[in-house]
Each structure stands twice: as structure tokens, then as C-alpha cells.
């Protein structure tokens, strides 16, 4: 029963017209009623989780080769990610002293070169001059004297490839020749 009527006519109306809320004809089932709120809660939890994971990994900034070499002593045996372009002709398969296979190569940025011994999986896109992000730490050792000529190498066990934004073609004829030679197919 409405109690808001103030004038005489309205009181008369409210007195005879039942204005009390009715039960909906088709009541929404419990699941349908609560599902959107649950989805909202789930989304908020997911956003929180994503941000937490992202911040937890935020320390994994890619250090460029020149920066990593310059801070080599400061970094000590901290684990970090380093980005650089593999030097053409430097890539070679080797075996560690325990017999495990590895890939040795050099990476360069701004003419600063670092030697790398990588023991993890190698990307399909691991190619000379295509930047790689390698996850590992500096090691000072004479184990690979012929590779780490200055006594330092970057021991990595995870490799990601950061392709650049260049999709132009060059040397079309040489590419066609390479294709014919079966360098890629």
C-alpha cells in the first residue's frame, strides 16, 4: 500500500489500486541471478592474478649486451635476461664437459660482443642478426677458452626470439637462389 499520496485524488487511487510489488512471473533461477556477479568476481581475481604475475616477472627486464657487459661485475651471478643479435658465423654446436650438447655463439649490440653458451632449447627462429633474449647469468671460467676468450661467457638455458618490425624484402635474386639450394623451404 502506497503511503506517498498527498492529495485527495491520489489517496483515493492508492486506496483501491494495489501498488505492492508482485513476484515476477518468470523468476530468474538462482544460477542465472548470481552468474554475472560471479563472473565479475572471477574477472577481478584474474586481473589481480595477472598483475601479480606480471609484477613478479617485472625484474626480468631485457638488458642489452653493452649494458650487461658493462655491469658484469655488479651483476655477479644474478640471473637476468640479455638481448642481442647473434653474430653471423659464430654459431657452433659444442658439448659441455659432462657431455650435454650446447650451442655457443656471440651476441652483439653497438659493437659490444658477449659470448654465450646455451644449453636449453633453440628456437626455430634462432638466426644470425635476429635478436634473441637469453635467460641466464655471467660465468667466469676457462672451460671454454676458445669461445670465451676474455674468460667470461653468458650461461643461458632459455632462449626467446624478438623479431623486429622489418618485413621488407632485400636481395630477391639471392633469396631465390638460396631457396633453390634448399636453405629453407
Amino acid at each position: 500500500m502506497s503511503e506517498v499520496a498527498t492529495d485527495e485524488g491520489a489517496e483515493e487511487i492508492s486506496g483501491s489500486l494495489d501498488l505492492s510489488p508482485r513476484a515476477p512471473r518468470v523468476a530468474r533461477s538462482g544460477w542465472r541471478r548470481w552468474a554475472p556477479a560471479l563472473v565479475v568476481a572471477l574477472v577481478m581475481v584474474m586481473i589481480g592474478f595477472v598483475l601479480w604475475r606480471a609484477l613478479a616477472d617485472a625484474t626480468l627486464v631485457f638488458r642489452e649486451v653493452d649494458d650487461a657487459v658493462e655491469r658484469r661485475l655488479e651483476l655477479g651471478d644474478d640471473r637476468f635476461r640479455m638481448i642481442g643479435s647473434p653474430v653471423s658465423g659464430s654459431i657452433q654446436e659444442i658439448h659441455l664437459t659432462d657431455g650435454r650438447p650446447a650451442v655457443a655463439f656471440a651476441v652483439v649490440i653497438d659493437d659490444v660482443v658477449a659470448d654465450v653458451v646455451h644449453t636449453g632449447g633453440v628456437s626455430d627462429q634462432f638466426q644470425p642478426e635476429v635478436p634473441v633474449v637469453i635467460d641466464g647469468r655471467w660465468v667466469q671460467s676457462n672451460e671454454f677458452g676458445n669461445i670465451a676468450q676474455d674468460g667470461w661467457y653468458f650461461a643461458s638455458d632459455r632462449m626467446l626470439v624478438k623479431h623486429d618490425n622489418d618485413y621488407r624484402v632485400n636481395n630477391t635474386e639471392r633469396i631465390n637462389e638460396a631457396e633453390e639450394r634448399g636453405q629453407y623451404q
Partner: protein
Amino acid sequence: MSLTTVLSRQNATQDTQSISSSATKALGWAALVGFAILVVLAFAWVPADTRITDQGDVVGQFDAVRLMFVHVPSAILAYTGFGITFLASLGYLRWRTDWWDIMAASAAEIGVIFGVLTLVTGSIWGRPTWQTWWEWGDVRLVTTLVMVLVFIGYLAVRRIPANAAVKARRSVVIALVGAANIVIVNRSVDWWENRTLHQQSTLLARKIRDETLFTLTFAFVVGATLFGWLLLHRFRVGYLERQITEQEVQKAIAERQAESAAHDTGSLTQASNPTGQIQPQSKTSP
């Protein structure tokens, strides 16, 4: 009612007797044919991504680059959907009409579809090129995921039972917050270049070969056509849902009035509604 209004309504009614007008049918067919052409261009015309270094090494993404033609347009369409949601939300704040609210919701839903596709196709493209499906520390990936989650939340909030105006106001707030993230997502590759595997813009740098550029542009056109078709139809769904809600409200009012007329003969009904017409309600709750 003026003659022009009558004629325009008659034409409009004829146009919507089926679920699609001739214009939207044409749009749909254009999108389908365009997509078929896009498949041919992407797989038969565009060469694989290959470059040769000064030392003679053949490098590139090879055929994986053909994923560009679904991934990049998906991202652009997601931005478009969320951008339209943002603008329509501003429109709602200014004009407070259902048209803007329905437009905002429709665009957000389509934006979420393409946003999820951006993440999925990006992940599929990332595996062969980056050697990873997902990186939690990558700002581009994480901000994109957050953007999509915010708009999934936006759609869920709209489904929480509430008065239509309350729902619309809640939605506007989320849309405005979500829209701010669009800028962060788009600029993240430049702002945090050493925190993402994602490349910077190719188009702005103009580092793309002609066939690839043409096909990518064509993919944008096909995507825009498809987006337009989806938005028109999804908007109509929203509009019809409001119409049904309105019908139910009017039916309930009529039933109440019939009940009151049955209880009290004549004078009371005359006092409450002298013209015998159904009066517009100030607020309706779908």
C-alpha cells in the same frame, strides 16, 4: 504525425520485416567474399618473409608471417570495439538515451570477441617466432589481457540485475577505465621496449613489402566490413531486447489497471487516467 514521418516509418518497417535489410545483407556478402579473397591473397600471393643477411644467411619468419593477416586486424577491431564503447559511453553521459547504451554494449561484446582472438592468434604466432606461447613479464601481452578482462567484466556487470539507468551508469564508469588501458596497450611497445618481445609498429615505420602491405590493408577493409555487419546486427539484438522489456512493462501496467478497474467501477479509473491512455513511465527496468 506528419506524412514524412509516416513514410519513413513505413519504409523502415518494410526494411526490418526480416532479420536483415538488403543493405546489411550486401554488407554480409561483401565480408564473406572479401574474406575468401583475403585467404587467396594471404596464402597464394604474399611471399614468405625472408631476408638475406650481408653474410648470406637467409633469415625471416618464413610462412608464419601469414598469421599477421588475422592477428593484426583482430587487434585493430578489438581497439575499434572498445573505442566505440568509450565514445558511446560518453554519448550516453551527454544525451542519456538508450541508443548510446545499446551501442556501447554491442561494441564491447564484439571488441571482446576480437580481443580474445588477438590473444589466441598472438599466442599461436608467438610460439614459432618467439619460442613461447605466453610470457607473464611481457607488458604488451599482460596489458592486452587486462584490457580484455576489463571488458569481459564490463559485459558481466551489465548482466547483474539492476535498474536500466543504474546499469548504464555502472557500465560507463568501467568503459572509461577500460578505454584508458587501450592507450597503454597500444603504446606499451614503445614505452617499455625492453620489457616486451612484441615488435614495434611496422606500418608506422613503413618497413613492409608492397604485397604484404596491400594484403594487410585489404584485411583491414574486410575486417571493417565484418565489424560493421556484426555491430549492426548485435545492435538490433539489443534494441529488440529493450522492445520486449518495454512490452512486458506495458503489459504489466495494463493488467494492474484492469485489476483496479475491476475493483472500483468508473470514478476511480477516471481520476487516475482521464484520457484512458497508457502514460509513459518515468523509469523502466528491463
